[in-house]
């Protein structure tokens, strides 16, 4: 550590260059991770807020709640751990003709999802023309008692409450009554027709064995959300490539720095300085450079988090960002191993005779 610290102190420009590289890579990894996390959360925030484990859908729905219709018979007997859920895409329009793509979720007010909705402002839905909507609509100028028109109809719907983090597939969620969902889907409220899109359950062992219905885990539903898996895979690949790039950059920089020092190291070896001391100096140098770079990248990310508008779907999760930082550190230490062989094999005889 002594040699590493002294070298960094003396060779400020060279060390600074390496640190700047690591800061930029670290910053990019942190921002991409936060963006991936933010988008993933906006895809699944609503589903996660329901506290469900299993979902029973129509077997022909391709594991998509919006495409599923389940009859009362198929839903079977519901316990207090199950609830009906009707989901459909809507386009909402206000008096100013401002259009918003959203997801309408119809609920039975006595079942657990509706009961457990955490209203941040206003009250729960009490009638067929009332909506509780995601709080992000406030940023678009909507307030309590604002009126919305869904799917081009002339029926006015009133916003009676707001909930936080009600997003599904990045679209804001409008919670309403199950009968409203039926109306939006053009399904009659009487007879043996569809009752809901799905039956959701808090019970991890729930399994609907009715004909024409299949039960899925929450994660299976999330993975089949349109674009969700492709988007996450893209981010994971980008982050993985950045990690590999950081490994190569650190390895190349350290290799060049180490090659320049080999004649000095040969003298030290001739003087009896153990190879492990020189190897330790190389690893310490890598450690110090990467830690400095990652910390500076972290500070830059924190600054970005403060300045970033709330509309940007980013989520700064400290434990996950720390994991990314540790990953970068591991890559840096692996990069230093490339130079280690040269350090350990330095031949002190070469310094004799000139």
């Amino acid at each position, binding site marked *: 550590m*002594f*040699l590493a610290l*002294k*070298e960094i*102190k*003396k*060779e400020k420009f060279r060390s600074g260059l390496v640190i700047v590289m690591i800061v930029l890579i670290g910053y990019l990894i942190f921002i991409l991770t936060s963006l991936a996390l933010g988008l993933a959360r906006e895809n699944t925030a609503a589903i996660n807020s329901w506290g469900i484990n299993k979902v029973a859908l129509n077997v022909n729905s391709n594991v998509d709640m919006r495409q599923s219709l389940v009859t009362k018979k198929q839903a079977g007997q519901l316990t207090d751990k199950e609830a009906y859920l009707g989901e459909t895409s809507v386009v909402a329009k206000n008096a100013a003709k401002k259009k918003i793509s959203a997801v309408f979720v119809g609920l039975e007010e006595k079942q657990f999802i509706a009961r457990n909705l955490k209203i941040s402002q206003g009250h729960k839905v009490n009638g067929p023309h009332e909506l509780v909507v995601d709080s992000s609509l406030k940023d678009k100028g909507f307030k309590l008692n604002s009126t919305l028109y869904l799917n081009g109809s002339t029926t006015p719907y009133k916003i009676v409450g707001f909930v936080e983090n009600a997003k599904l597939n990045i679209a804001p969620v409008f919670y309403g009554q199950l009968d409203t969902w039926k109306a939006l889907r053009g399904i009659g409220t009487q007879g043996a027709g569809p009752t809901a899109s799905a039956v959701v359950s808090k019970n991890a062992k729930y399994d609907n064995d009715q004909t024409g219905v299949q039960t899925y885990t929450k994660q299976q539903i999330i993975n089949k959300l349109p674009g969700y898996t492709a988007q996450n895979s893209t981010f994971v690949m980008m982050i993985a490539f950045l990690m590999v790039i950081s490994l190569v950059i650190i390895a190349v920089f350290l290799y060049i720095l180490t090659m320049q*020092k080999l*004649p*000095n190291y*040969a*003298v*030290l*070896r*001739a*003087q*009896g*300085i*153990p*190879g492990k*001391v020189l190897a330790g100096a190389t690893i310490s140098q890598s450690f110090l450079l990467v830690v400095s770079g990652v910390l500076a990248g972290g500070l830059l990310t924190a600054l970005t988090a403060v300045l970033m508008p709330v509309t940007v779907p980013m989520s700064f999760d400290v434990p996950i960002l720390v994991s990314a930082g540790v990953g970068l550190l591991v890559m840096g230490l692996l990069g230093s191993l490339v130079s280690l062989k040269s350090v350990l094999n330095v031949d*002190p*005889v070469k*310094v*004799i*005779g*000139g």
Partner: protein
Amino acid sequence: MSTIAIKDVDHFYGTGSAKFQALHAINFAADAGTLSVISGPSGSGKSTFLAIMGGLLTPTSGTVTVNDKRYDQMGQKQRDALRLDEIGFVLQSYKLLPYLTVADQFKFVKKVRPKGNVSPAENDEILATLGISSLLDKYPGELSGGQQQRVAIARALYTNPAIILADEPTAALDSSRVKEVGTLLKNLAVKYNKAVIVVTHDLRLIGFADHLYEIEDGHLTQKQ
């Protein structure tokens, strides 16, 4: 008992038809308090001899004994330790670590070898003797070649070794500087009771030697 004794050392490089004998039945000994100068032209085997004395090469045959310890029978780690404890190298290209100040060059050695080094007072005296006390905060790049050489000598003395091995210490120096370095090495041997061995092709140093050897085509002969 000599501080360093070399008996019947042969050394070969290569194998088969490329096999080449660099040293032939070398016998050599040096005692504390003396300056031995081994001179010879380029390609005479000087560097091989120095590398074997310093424990950097294992001779093909023969024995190397430093303070009664058989160097040639030791493993790498033991030899590293013995070099650190018993031998101070002063190399032609001083190659002081460029990012350590003069003071840090000593601090680094102290971190690797916390015990057995000269005391701070002794080190101050060595620095004063070498005329480099005022250079402690300087980096090697800020020193002249002569100053770097004296720092390298101080660094070699810091571990309080029994032997100082100097490789071409007067290469590229003018006659007045050669005289200065010769006097310095002679004084080091006497004042600090070291066996100082200088390997050189510079005949201007032979006047300072207590023992003078000549090496040619791998054969060592004592001249004085």
